[in-house]
């Protein structure tokens, strides 16, 4: 920890040693905003998280002083931009402990990363009758690309079921994992319910049968320290905008040997080493997968987000967030008629809930007028909602800059919901 906590917020239980949430909040300009005349209480972090000043400044500095295309110019600015872009790659490499920088492919986000894997690795290697194993907890972005692949190849989508708490049924997983299975694609943390899945166990089981594993880490990297070498996953994907970085940038991690063997995703500049009308030689990895001018500012901004996380000793966030989760779970459980949806034993700081007959959309609007931003709806989890028998839930998702006081505001606003609709 860079600094032990010296001041706690009034009426708050002491934060875990060293998690100085007030100082951290000071790093996020937007947290000083008011909404509807009330202080913003931002509890929609699973949809997108806020950006620290250092990220915003870094993107601005790039445009003000460094803007140029990369990998192309001989001029100083282009060299500088290229250097910063590649520097960001090595920051991301270390952030998830990839073995090599060339295993980090920059993409638009988790969605594009999964599409890339499906349409390159999948299209090349899968055939009719092969099976793709996903789970009932997946975000649409870890469902639809596989369905599209199935349409093209005749492969079959299999789904690991869950229990009512929102936990994967692991014995069912083992049954569904067969010699037909070609890939397991599963999220690390569920966006709808917050369930933390036992991915190490899943990866080991799959590997024991020679099956590759893609981990959708969109919701895990903002909360948990990830080590892709320790996990030994084959693919790991996430989005920068949920990781306190800019929108439009994300990461596909894949083991180098896999990337080497995969055909390119899109064709264009940068992904080639030589082009003639007769034949094109593709560039080496990761450039083979980075056709066209990339999101340079976003990449550099994401690098700055990683720097920021390192500077606040991000490893301590999980304990603090767990405390928030327990506090919030307690508060919400006291609200008459409210039911928390997703009660897995291992959970990230996500509170999905329903309130009897009161529709989540109405909850969201009443909360909005109290300055409280949550997400309502199906959370890009329609098959999950169907499994739970719910059209929608309301979801409060916390980040390490949220406070217990904010959860108190949430609880008060929820009581107002009951006043209006109860």
């Amino acid at each position, binding site marked *: 920890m860079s600094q032990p906590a010296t001041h706690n917020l009034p009426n708050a239980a002491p934060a875990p040693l060293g998690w100085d949430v007030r100082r951290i909040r000071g790093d996020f300009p937007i947290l000083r905003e008011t909404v509807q005349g009330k202080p913003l209480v931002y509890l929609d972090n699973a949809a997108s998280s806020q950006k620290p000043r250092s990220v915003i400044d870094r993107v601005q500095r790039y445009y003000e002083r460094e803007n140029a295309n990369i990998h192309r110019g001989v001029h100083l600015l282009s060299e500088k931009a290229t250097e910063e872009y590649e520097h960001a790659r090595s920051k991301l490499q270390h952030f998830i402990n990839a073995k090599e920088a060339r295993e980090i492919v920059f993409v638009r986000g988790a969605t594009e990363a999964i599409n890339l894997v499906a349409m390159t690795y999948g299209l090349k290697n899968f055939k009719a009758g092969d099976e793709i194993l996903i789970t009932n907890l997946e975000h649409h972005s870890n469902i639809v690309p596989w369905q599209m692949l199935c349409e093209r190849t005749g492969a079959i989508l299999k789904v690991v079921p869950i229990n009512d708490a929102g936990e994967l049924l692991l014995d069912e997983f083992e049954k569904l994992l067969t010699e037909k299975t070609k890939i397991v694609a599963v999220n690390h943390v569920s966006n709808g319910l917050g369930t933390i899945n036992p991915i190490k166990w899943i990866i080991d089981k799959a590997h024991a049968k020679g099956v590759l594993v893609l981990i959708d880490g969109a919701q895990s990297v903002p909360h948990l320290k990830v080590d892709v070498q320790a996990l030994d996953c084959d693919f790991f994907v996430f989005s920068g905008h949920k990781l306190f970085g800019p929108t439009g940038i994300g990461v596909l991690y894949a083991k180098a040997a896999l990337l080497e063997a995969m055909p390119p995703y899109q064709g264009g500049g940068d992904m080639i080493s030589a082009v003639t009308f007769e034949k094109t030689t593709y560039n080496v990895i990761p450039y083979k997968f980075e056709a066209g001018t990339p999101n340079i500012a976003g990449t550099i901004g994401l690098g700055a987000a990683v720097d920021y996380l390192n500077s606040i000793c991000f490893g301590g966030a999980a304990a603090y967030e767990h405390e928030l989760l327990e506090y919030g779970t307690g508060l919400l459980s006291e609200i008459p008629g409210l039911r928390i949806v997703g009660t897995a034993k291992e959970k990230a700081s996500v509170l999905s809930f329903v309130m009897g007959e*009161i*529709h*989540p*959309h*109405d909850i969201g609007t009443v909360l909005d007028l109290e300055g409280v931003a949550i997400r*309502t*709806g*199906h959370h890009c989890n329609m098959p999950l909602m169907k499994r739970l028998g719910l*059209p929608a839930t309301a979801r409060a998702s916390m980040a390490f800059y949220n406070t217990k006081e904010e959860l108190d505001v949430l609880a008060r606003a929820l009581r107002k919901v009951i006043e209006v609709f109860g």
Partner: protein
Amino acid sequence: MSELSELYQEVILDHNKQPRNYRKLEGANHHAEGYNPLCGDQITVYLKMDGDKIEDVSFVGSGCAISKASSSMMTGAVKGKTKAEAEAVFEKFHQMVTGKPGTPAPENIGKLAVFSGVCEFPSRVKCASLAWHTLRSAMEGRDETISTEAEEAGDDAHPRR
């Protein structure tokens, strides 16, 4: 609380709690389903048409307070009207809920004026207009389920992730 009570007017809360014409219509000769995938609102509108005239109308479904109240009040507003008259009411209603905040409610919109607060809440426009889109689909005798997500961008579209 003022904006809150402007959106959720007493009348709306009342129709939400006790929706009118909430049943499957015996002898209906038209029906259509409407779906708002963003919030999971789902309704079916039933019509008994006599030529061009809406002799009776009802709905069933589930949804938020705005969509339920809007469905309920839609049934009241169009019963006994001709297709063209119902279309004209929808036109005005749509104008009102998608209009600039602060513009007075259109004339002759009657009780439906309670939805004028919706225009302050762009994310709720679809909730308010779902019943009307579904009615239109039922009147036109289309069999497909209409979805608010299939609308033209820029119309009621405020897609949210």
